[in-house]
């Protein structure tokens, strides 16, 4: 399938790609990322998974590798500092700045304020975890802290993004592919109720240490914090073990109460996103493997290059990489309205 890119004469959108490990960083850069985003191996980033992320030396090497190839590195320090432990987050900012990160992706107001005052020349981005989704909220961050780019929550339509982009003095970044949070991120507490830990404070939604899968009967049972959140019949696709994608009995019906397991894929609406004033596209998945990374980054690189030269957009088959083997444009087109 192809899609024409006529009518999209705006500035080319940057392709921002995930890097859970140094190896993934190299893969993303080689596959055509304009920038990669990554984080430290601790609670300062919202993908604090076992075996994932960078230490101080790995980040410095990664930045040097990316810069040598014309790519940028954005460091996500996008959780909210615990009371009495702000030094952990401040140290992470210092290390990222020392590593020559091109930008820091922050969410915590106190940390943003500290980073701005301590490193006035450092480029700061506002993380999706800050859940800034209105013009006044974004203007506050821009005018108060000099935020240069905001990552919008995955709850807005293309028209709503356009309205925001034309009324704020900063760049707009949106999610383009991967796992889909339908919640206003940074405000979602579902994981906390089941596990006592949350992406906002501990850097993990549905921490792996609380997840258990078991073959029972003729199906796979997924549990989070001891709660059964889904039973997958044999042969049926499965999703991530998050409460928002679990199936529950509600009003005498067993159903996906919040959302079905599915992944975001915006390749088909890239011209509309560009026209809306989006400056950067983010591929989700620091927890994914290099094979996923190479496939998605190349697909979006080809699409963005086609868009820039007004060629027909390639629409590669990516459903095998998606949760539940399904894909959607999510809130960008709210067909349920």
């Amino acid at each position: 399938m192809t899609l024409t890119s006529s009518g999209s004469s705006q500035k080319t959108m940057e392709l921002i790609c995930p890097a859970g490990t140094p190896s993934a960083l190299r893969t993303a850069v080689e596959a055509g990322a304009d920038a990669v985003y990554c984080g430290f191996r601790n609670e300062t980033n919202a993908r604090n998974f076992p075996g994932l992320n960078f230490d101080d030396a790995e980040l410095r090497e990664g930045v040097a590798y990316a810069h040598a190839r014309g790519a940028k590195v954005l460091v996500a320090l996008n959780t909210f500092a615990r009371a009495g432990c702000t030094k952990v987050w401040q140290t992470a900012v210092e290390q990222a700045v020392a590593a020559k990160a091109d930008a820091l992706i922050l969410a915590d107001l106190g940390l943003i304020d500290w980073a701005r005052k301590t490193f006035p020349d450092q480029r700061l981005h506002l993380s999706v975890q800050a859940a800034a989704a209105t013009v006044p909220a974004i203007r506050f961050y821009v005018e108060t802290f000099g935020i240069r780019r905001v990552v919008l929550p995955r709850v807005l339509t293309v028209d709503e993004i356009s309205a925001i982009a034309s009324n704020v003095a900063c760049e707009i970044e949106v999610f383009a592919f991967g796992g889909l949070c339908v919640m206003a991120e940074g405000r979602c507490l579902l994981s906390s109720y089941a596990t006592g830990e949350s992406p906002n404070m501990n850097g993990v939604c549905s921490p792996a240490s609380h997840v258990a899968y078991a073959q029972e009967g003729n199906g796979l049972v997924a549990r989070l914090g001891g709660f059964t959140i889904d039973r997958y019949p044999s042969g049926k696709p499965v999703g991530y073990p998050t409460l928002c994608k679990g199936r529950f009995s509600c009003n005498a019906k067993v159903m996906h109460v919040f959302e079905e397991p599915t992944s975001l894929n915006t390749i088909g609406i890239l011209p509309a996103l560009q026209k809306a004033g989006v400056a950067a596209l983010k591929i989700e998945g620091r927890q994914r493997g290099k094979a996923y990374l190479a496939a998605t980054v190349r697909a979006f690189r080809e699409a963005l290059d086609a868009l820039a030269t007004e060629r027909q957009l390639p629409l590669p088959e990516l459903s095998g990489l998606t949760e539940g083997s399904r894909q959607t444009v999510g809130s960008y087109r709210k067909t349920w309205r």
Partner: protein
Amino acid sequence: MLDVDPQNETLARRGFLPGRLARAMAFLPLYPLEFAAFRVLENTLSQHPGMLSRLGEHASKRFAIDPVDCPFGIILEPRESTPRLSVVPSLETCSWDARIAAPLLVLLGLLDGCYDGDALFFTRDLTIEGDTAAVLALRNAIEDAEIDPGEALGMPKLAAPFVTASLRTIATQLRTALGAPEELNGKTSGAP
């Protein structure tokens, strides 16, 4: 593993070795396989010391590697100073912290980085049980290590690239012939 239930419909059967081949393998002694697999483990850990750092506390866990189309299983304990590996005819009586199950060619593809673990999990080509955190740590450690098959087998430096390329070609052809999930090359997907 074959002795569990070869017709088990709870797993996708893409990429399974032919039943006759798998049954014939049951007559082979396990010790040579165990010896070779242990050498690969030793070589890999010495060539990629960062793996143990990524595994962290999970390095001491017992991983049951279950090639569901083969008449054997592997118990792996990476452990920092004294790694252990044993090949057993059945995992049924073994204790483990985490079990990772998939057809042999899929497991080897994961090791070689031509599959994405999450994607295989979504399509039921890969099953995990037990300590999910340990499985993630192992997966991420392998992902970052970029294990080269020729070097892991202990091939001399000059021969390793040739061995690696040959093994990858053979594995790709076998996966195609047996209908395994498509390898990810950046242009297409492994959609069923």
